[in-house]
């Protein structure tokens, strides 16, 4: 099955539990979830994957046009659900994968039993009435920052980063490769992430939705979480007493607990 390799799909947890898909955001890969997988895996079948262009997804699957928009990533999520025949999964998306999950769930609402949006931001750039937290200049700044930090990246690293998918353990290789991606692919993903405006898509969400935000988040401030909450009818908002944009790293127990209680309610 092609999606297994294309998206480096990994399964964890109980075979017979409800299915939870964990989707990483811009920057790193599925190992962002390493501290919550064991917790959630106690009751769920956990599906992990890398977006094309990140982690150990198949570099041959890269297509700069396809992945220039979040729709390309949402297509991949739907094809993972379809090809793996996932039964009514809960989709947990971190950061930009929140928007990717919203796009996928709006396209095929019957496929999902719920959405968990972890530190979501439907639009990163400010306009007259909306505070996303960033200006267009900030984003250009980020793109340049990616370039500066990739000066040390070399294509000879690529086999190390992309190769050997048979070694799941958290070894030297992973710590060396984590968060290192092909600069051209990272540029495209960064543009798709930070220049998208998915605010209008939120109102169309019809599946049960949990929004998880951090009390202190340098990327998605609480106002943005409140905006998402207000736009999605019937959604729940949980603010974790955590700092940073990645509660699955800074507060893994609280993150896993919030996801667990949401899923318990959804499957009751």
């Amino acid at each position, binding site marked *: 099955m092609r999606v297994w390799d294309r998206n480096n799909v990994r399964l964890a947890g109980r075979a017979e539990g409800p299915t939870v898909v964990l989707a990483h955001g811009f920057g790193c890969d599925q190992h962002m979830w390493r501290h919550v997988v064991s917790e959630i895996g106690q009751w769920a079948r956990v599906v992990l994957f890398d977006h094309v262009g990140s982690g150990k997804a198949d570099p041959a699957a890269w297509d700069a046009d396809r992945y220039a928009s979040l729709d390309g990533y949402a297509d991949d999520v739907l094809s993972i659900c379809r090809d793996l025949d996932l039964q009514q999964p809960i989709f947990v998306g971190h950061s930009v994968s929140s928007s990717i999950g919203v796009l996928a769930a709006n396209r095929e609402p019957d496929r999902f039993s719920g959405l968990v949006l972890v530190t979501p931001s439907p639009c990163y750039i400010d306009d007259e009435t909306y505070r996303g937290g960033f200006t267009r200049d900030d984003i250009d700044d980020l793109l340049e920052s990616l370039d*500066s930090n990739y000066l040390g990246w070399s294509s000879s690293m690529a086999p190390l980063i992309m190769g050997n998918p048979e070694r799941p353990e958290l070894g030297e290789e*992973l710590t060396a490769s984590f968060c290192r991606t092909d600069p051209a692919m990272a540029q495209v993903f960064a543009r798709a992430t930070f220049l998208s405006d998915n605010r209008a898509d939120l109102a169309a969400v019809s599946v049960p939705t949990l929004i998880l935000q951090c009390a202190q988040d340098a*990327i998605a401030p609480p106002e943005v979480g409140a905006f998402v909450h207000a736009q999605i009818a019937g959604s729940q908002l949980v603010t974790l007493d955590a700092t*940073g944009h990645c509660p699955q790293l800074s507060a893994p127990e609280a993150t896993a607990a919030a996801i667990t209680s949401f899923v318990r309610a959804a499957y009751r």
Partner: protein
Amino acid sequence: MTATGGRDPHGPGPSDDGSARPSEVGFSALLEDDPEDLYENAPCGHLSTRLDGTIAKINGTLLAWLGYRREELVGRRRFSDLLTGGGRIYHETHFAPMLAMRGEIGGVALDLRTKDGARMPVLVTSVVKAGSEGQPQLIRTAIFDATMRRSYERELLNARRAAEREDERLRQLVGKLQRSLLPAVLQTPPGLESAAYYRAASTDEVGGDFYDLFPLEDGRWGFFLGDVSGKGVEAAAVTALARYTLRAATVYNPDPAAALRNLNTVLWQEYRQDARYCTVVSGILTPTPTVGGFTAVIASGGHPEPLLLKADGSVHYHPTKGRIVGAFPNSRYTNATVVANPGDTLLLYSDGLTEARSATSETADGRYGTAALARFAHSIAPTNATTAVAAVTELLGTFGAGLTDDTAILAISAP
């Protein structure tokens, strides 16, 4: 200063007996450098943050760079608050997750935002300090001024992008020029088959091989395949001259030996100073519809001998002789006739094929060689133009990096 009062004016303290040598004075200066002062006024910024990023300790150097007072930052601001918007995203999406995974991260390029709004490029290195039980306690960060380095890197990056653009432009230009030196579409004499293949050894240099197959007025066809010495733009000019001279000479007087003599005169006149010359096989082909084959009158100027792959599976090199074209004045060439019956294939090629370095070579110099080519031809005979060219193309693929020169192949067969 006298010898007895010998004391380094910059030294930290008096010497006991007044006889200390300068090296001892320097050493004692080091001993007495105050660790507190070293931290505070180090030539780099020092920052300690709690695990949530809150600033716990900061040195004077970094405060001076940023323009903040200590009490404005300690306990109040986070490290990411000191970064530009883009840097903040990079910190949250890359820096912090990597630091959490590895416990250390070094040499990351970020920009600080100073109190008055200015931007300061820095290189950041962080380590997580663990307690006695191994539990993370705080993050120590060293920050280096990278203003000069960043502008240098930016130039480097711009230069790389410019080089990539130029490279692409050159590749396209070379491709266009190369195609312009070969027939856009290979024509085929009625009742016969033809096929050709060209492989350039390099994508950024125009190769010097050329070929053509074209009708004459009386039902006969002219053809040639040649190889100009050298590569690049100068060789391309010679290639163009050779191709059009041969074609014009052949149309004017359908006699291969005369056409080569003509070309020899032109190249000698034009390029004898530059030692530009070429090897070429030139021919006139007459279809023989009653029999179903063709006859070809062929002349050669120093070129590898054409191969005839017969319908019965046998293979013959067609013997030719004649000097390299353009190398000597007044060179003369001779015609010889090849008869191709139904099922026969005439194969012309340039020495890129026989001179390729081959792992399985039996020649003394490691080249593929004419004997190996004859055996290969025998293994595919009988064949036709299309199949033969496809087989030789595949053979070229097996040479890999051993294929150092351009290679042209032209095959004409009688079905």
